[in-house]
């Protein structure tokens, strides 16, 4: 194993260990309540970046995948009593299938047309959920989550730990994609689709793979959400704020590496959480917009680019 991979593995183990130990180190449940949201956005930003960052296909439909994960998980738990890990797995699989379907319908178009088409996915899914009474329709549905396991101190702590595992798994997946032949192919697509195709890259198939992986991660991010809030409704599950953050966080952190979305999500989501309790939750949107404009104007490569994270991944 290469040195960088060993360092990443060590970091992942440390984060996972902290995720399991935190509940015994911090007593205030609010930290876990807020930490859950930050980690949820780390997962969302990381998932979005597989297609939007590596391949350069700006997907405005992140909330559609997230909402699908939320509702599938809520449905499977309330109807069949499936345990949370299976709900997450099912959400990831459905997210991947949804990603491939979206890819087949939209990947032949590029740029702003692709972005608009993906935005349509959110509207379609939200409308479907609005009209299914079994999912609570427009009024939403209550989800009384499972009792946390004996080793966990409470629901907030348990949800936090679950989200730590999902976030670490998502980042590991994104890193693997980035340094593999898939990531190189996707980055070639981003630079020039014709040149990539003429270099032997099966661009359409590769983009479908990216759609599937991205969709799986985004839907998995939504799976524990019903147990976090105990109530789901279409307006919040398919909220455009999720789609906006999914784009803003990687753009601020940097879209070319797995580190960028993590940095962007940690910074932006943390500030949003602090602003929510100290000033106003509405201020979040203003803050995200202002920071996004600043980065697009002055540091289009994001924070990771400023610190030279875009050096070559393969050493000659």
């Amino acid at each position: 194993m290469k040195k960088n991979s060993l360092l990443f593995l060590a970091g992942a183990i440390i984060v996972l260990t902290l995720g399991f130990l935190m509940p015994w180190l911090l007593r205030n449940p609010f930290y876990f309540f807020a930490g859950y949201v930050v980690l949820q956005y780390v997962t969302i930003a990381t998932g979005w970046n597989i297609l939007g960052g590596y391949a350069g296909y700006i997907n405005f439909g992140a909330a559609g995948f997230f909402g699908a994960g939320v509702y599938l998980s809520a449905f499977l738990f309330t109807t069949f009593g499936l345990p949370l890990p299976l709900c997450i797995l099912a959400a990831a699989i459905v997210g991947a299938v949804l990603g491939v379907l979206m890819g087949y319908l939209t990947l032949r178009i590029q740029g702003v047309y692709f972005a608009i088409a993906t935005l349509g996915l959110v509207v379609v899914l939200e409308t479907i959920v609005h009209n299914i009474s079994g999912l609570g329709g427009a009024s939403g549905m209550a989800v009384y989550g499972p009792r946390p396991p004996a080793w966990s101190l409470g629901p907030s702590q348990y949800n936090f730990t679950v989200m730590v595992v999902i976030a670490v798994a998502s980042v590991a997946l994104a890193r693997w994609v980035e340094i593999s032949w898939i990531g190189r192919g996707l980055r070639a697509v981003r630079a020039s689709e014709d040149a990539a195709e003429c270099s032997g890259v099966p661009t359409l198939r590769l983009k479908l793979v990216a759609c599937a992986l991205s969709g799986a991660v985004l839907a998995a991010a939504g799976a524990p959400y019903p147990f976090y809030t105990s109530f789901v409704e279409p307006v919040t599950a398919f909220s455009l704020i999720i789609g906006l953050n999914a784009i803003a966080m990687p753009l601020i952190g940097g879209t070319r590496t797995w580190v960028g979305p993590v940095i962007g999500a940690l910074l932006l989501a943390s500030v949003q959480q602090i602003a929510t309790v100290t000033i106003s939750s509405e201020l979040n949107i203003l803050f995200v917009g202002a920071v996004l404009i600043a980065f697009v104007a002055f540091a289009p490569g994001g924070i990771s680019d400023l610190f030279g994270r875009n050096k070559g991944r393969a050493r000659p």
Partner: protein
Amino acid sequence: MTEPVLSLKGVEKRFGSFRALGPVDLDVGAGERLGIIGPNGSGKTTLINCITGVHRPDSGSVFFESRDISHLQAHKRARMGIARSFQIPRPFTGMTVFENLLVPLDYCHVEGSKHDRARSVLASVGLSGRISDPSEKLTQLELRKLELARALVGNPKVLIADEAMAGLSEEEIDEVLEILFALNRSGVAVIMIEHIMHAVMRFSQRVVCFETGRLIAAGTSSEIAENPLVQKVYFGE
């Protein structure tokens, strides 16, 4: 001409009601050096796009090593051995020079170590010193060389160089020509599309001239230079 490695039979391409190319019949021999000339808008790049699979011809067929490849996608044609460079260089930005060469190596079957192959091709085009540099930092000549290196790293049988010398000085043109000659000596058929006449004439064993999508003349460099149709296209009546 040797046994054709590439054949076009009645290839035609339209964009709406505008016929950009054809119908064209053209053979390219194995290991041949073919020059394609013609004024802007004469269909040269459309021809390349039809050969490489970027465009699908509306009618006619493209044969590669006697196999009809008209229905194949561009990446499959590239894997079979049809490589190209682009008129305006299209480096894979966000990657180093070395990584640019790993992309075709990831997807085209090449014997031996990918890293060794990439290093040796970069050395052959004179880019060894830039191996770890981001492709965005290359000069125009280096970008042209990178395009050629990326095209030939997958061991192609046909290389199509689309205006690979545009915007270069005389010395730089000589450098690129030397790379193309060396490649041709290794048995690769090279199709050169170029507006720099002295370079095409010097390089090509056979030259064909296009105008308004049609092949109007074919012959050796000297035959083409004296062809009245070609003279009319370039100098008028």
